[in-house]
């Protein structure tokens, strides 16, 4: 089935004076995606996100959201978008409820008081709605930010660094919220984060940008499986024997025996299960078999290339 593109960014460029923040960024987000937007600091992620929300006007390139040109039909598009850019900031002298009422009023949809309370419940802030935002913790503001994005039932949610500054519990909460948005409300979510493991945990597709340019784009699973994994194997004994067996099976693979009980090798992810079964069948007692390459390694590899 052909995917319906929700966001199409083509050849985006933005300079601030002589500094080229974004040189050439292109990617496509499909309906129903949780789309990871990755890049090291200064890669141009926030500038791209701000361009996608018309906060910054690009020097060149095309942004189409829901098939419409962003800068020609801005209001119609933004009525169907919920977003957090960097940290969500609110009117600290107003209560959470008043803040949400303010943003609901200009969201482009009729948002009932009941809907506001339901959204507060969804993000776990029901009971704190009368409290002034000035007294909220960073995590509570983040959740209120997500509530603000959901008020008008948007089709697309854009979250720029939504876990920045959160403690581990806060990160888990935000991650769970994103998964609930995808699973319970079938939203399309685009998410940038420095917590790269989070992208791996929640996103199905991703793009990596570096120095203002797109490096790679695709499905997270495909991109991850296409890469070699650093496999760490721990046995009860005889790592030399295990190395000999692996060499017979995969002659091209370079194996490093690091101790009588451990060895490491670079292998494509598809062979990990096969190696495990062959070692066990040959009588080796496998204590641990741990693929070590995760998105961080892939990300570093891509951005340093």
């Amino acid at each position, binding site marked *: 089935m052909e995917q319906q593109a929700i966001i199409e960014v083509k050849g985006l460029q933005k300079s*601030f004076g002589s500094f080229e923040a974004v040189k050439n960024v292109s990617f496509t987000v499909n309906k129903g995606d949780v789309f990871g937007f990755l890049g090291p600091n200064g890669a141009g992620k926030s500038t791209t996100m*701000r361009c996608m*929300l*018309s*906060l*910054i*006007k690009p020097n060149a390139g095309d942004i189409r959201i829901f098939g419409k040109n962003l800068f020609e039909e*801005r*209001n*119609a*598009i*933004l*009525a169907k*978008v919920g*977003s957090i*850019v*960097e*940290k*969500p*900031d*609110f*009117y*600290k*002298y*107003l209560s959470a409820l*008043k803040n949400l009422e*303010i*943003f609901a*009023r*200009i*969201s*482009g949809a009729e948002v009932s008081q009941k809907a506001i309370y339901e959204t507060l419940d969804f993000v776990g802030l029901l009971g704190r709605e009368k409290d002034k935002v000035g007294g909220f913790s960073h995590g509570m503001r983040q959740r209120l930010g997500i509530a*603000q994005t959901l008020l008008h039932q948007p089709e697309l949610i854009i979250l720029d660094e939504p876990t920045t500054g959160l403690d581990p519990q806060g990160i888990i909460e935000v991650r769970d919220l994103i998964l609930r948005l995808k699973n319970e409300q079938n939203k399309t979510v685009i998410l940038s984060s420095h917590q790269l493991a989070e992208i791996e945990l929640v996103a199905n597709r991703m793009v990596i940008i570096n120095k203002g340019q797109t490096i790679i784009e695709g499905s997270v699973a495909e991109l991850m499986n296409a890469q070699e994994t650093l496999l760490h194997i721990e046995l009860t004994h005889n790592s030399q024997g295990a190395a000999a067996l692996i060499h017979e099976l995969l002659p091209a693979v370079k194996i490093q025996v690091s101790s009588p009980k451990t060895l490491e090798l670079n292998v494509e992810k598809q062979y990990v299960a096969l190696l495990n079964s062959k070692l066990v069948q040959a009588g080796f007692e496998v204590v641990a078999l741990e693929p070590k390459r995760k998105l961080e390694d892939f990300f570093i590899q891509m951005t340093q290339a």
Partner: protein
Amino acid sequence: MLWKNTYNEFIKILAKPRSYIGLAALTLLILIILFAMKADGRMYISFVTASFEQTLSFNGNILNGNLIAFIVLQMLIVHIPLLVALVTGDLLSGEAAMGTLRMLLTKPISRSQVVFSKLIAAAAYTFILVLWMGFLALVVGRWVFGDGDLIVLNSDGLVILNYTDVLWRYGLAFMVAYLALMTIATLSIAFSAFADNSIGPIVSTMAVIILFTIIGSLDVSVFDHVKPWLFTTHMASWRSFFSDPVPWSAIWESVWILLAHNILFVAIAIFKFKRKDITS
């Protein structure tokens, strides 16, 4: 969307403590002036009337509510711009400093509508400030000091206005004073469109007022062609309503110049704000 956001702006202004600083300061200042006039007003008036006492005889209640209102207006019209700028200079840049501007501008509302809604809120706030000043000066002044003919000393000499001929003059004077204060409001909003902090536009607005006032008061011919076009030159034109006869053409000229400044400042604010990259 414009009116919905204007409603939002009213909520924000009403909730901000700094909005009440102006009203509180105004109340305190006027009460101090009223108290001072009640305590020692006759002495104050005698400075004005002394030079005329050889040729004129003053009878009746000279120190009345009408005169008190005139004194209050004259004293405060110089200071109220700061109270106005304190709120209006913060309207756009304060949102940038708080980070709420990027939240606001990701909503389906145009940037022009954002500026206009803030302008309407600023106009309402300034109107309340002028109305409050008028109430305290004229209504409370009359209540404390009673009614009577208004004696005004201006550059042409002493003008005595019958008490039945005063109220309409005050009504129009407050309207022109309001227009002058709106010029301050639009100027500070224009500065606010350029800045990402709250203090900059407030200080810049006051700096422009001080600079233009100094240029206007310098008796140097090189500035003679500039002075008529400075908005500060026309900020005191409300006083002209207390001349007899009223110099209507001069007042209209001031009104047009102040209106032109208002339009210019709003245009600058919209032009800048529509093109501004929101990086805060």
